[in-house]
């Protein structure tokens, strides 16, 4: 059984989170892919990701990241409401429909977490802290390790499923 995430030293978490975001943005990949970083505070940021599908204009989504457990665990991640960066509600325009993702992934809305965790969405893959808050049994090489993974992993995987052919439009218009 994998260990459940527990908060780490918040100063170290904030510094590591900032350094890894800076490294990713310095690579040029976010700029080429149309990602936009919106810092909230030392431990939180939102990344605007463009979603694309044929015959539709680009639709933005907002991935809210939290570094409370970082980088002993991944960042927490939810899709956020554009108006106040709160966790987007089920059926919201700000929740994407994802169809046949290219890796093991599911987006659960209205998920029942253990009481100590205050989330409703579960971006269910090994690149979010949320995934480790509930019982899962990934293969050993898929488990997050700070030696191999940074917040880049989390952002890139969500950016990938927001592109054709995996993106199926918003949950609600």
């Amino acid at each position, binding site marked *: 059984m994998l260990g459940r995430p527990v908060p780490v030293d918040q100063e170290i978490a904030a510094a590591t989170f900032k350094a890894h975001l800076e490294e990713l943005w310095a690579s*040029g990949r976010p700029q080429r892919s149309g990602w936009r970083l919106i810092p909230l505070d030392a431990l939180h940021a939102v990344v605007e990701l463009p979603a694309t599908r044929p015959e539709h204009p680009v639709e933005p989504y907002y991935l809210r990241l939290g570094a409370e457990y970082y980088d002993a665990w991944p960042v927490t991640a939810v899709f956020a409401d554009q108006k106040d960066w709160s966790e987007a509600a089920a059926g919201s325009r700000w929740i994407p429909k994802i169809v046949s993702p290219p890796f093991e992934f599911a987006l659960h809305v209205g998920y029942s977490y253990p009481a100590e965790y205050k989330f409703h969405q579960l971006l269910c893959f090994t690149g979010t802290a949320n995934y480790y808050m509930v019982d899962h049994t990934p293969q050993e090489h898929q488990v997050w390790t700070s030696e191999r993974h*940074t917040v880049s992993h989390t952002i890139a995987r969500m950016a990938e499923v927001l592109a054709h052919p995996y993106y199926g439009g918003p949950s609600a218009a």
Partner: protein
Amino acid sequence: MTIAAVGDHEVTGMSEQTSERGDQNDHEDKRVVWVHNEDNGRDYEIKARDEMTIDTIVGELYTKLNTQRRSDDRLRCEQGGESVLSFLTLTLEAYLEAGHCRDLRWLFAGGTGGA
């Protein structure tokens, strides 16, 4: 939080060919394959000759990544997402002549569990 838009790792000029000048006996043109490791946000540069197979180039990538190949690893073209691993037997020249990933920017992602 301040995020630099440009840094030491920024890459440009993906499709340019470079020449080996360090060895006077080796004047073969080499292309540069740029690989962005999505797992950690870092970039890698692989110099490759046209006659090298994609498999050989991928092997060099794994050496740089210092990791072993796994069946659920993915390597795809940044433009359009086409899998590079579908063309392991092609030479780089044939890969480009067939119209695949002309700017040679690839994205690496290790296995991801979930759902």
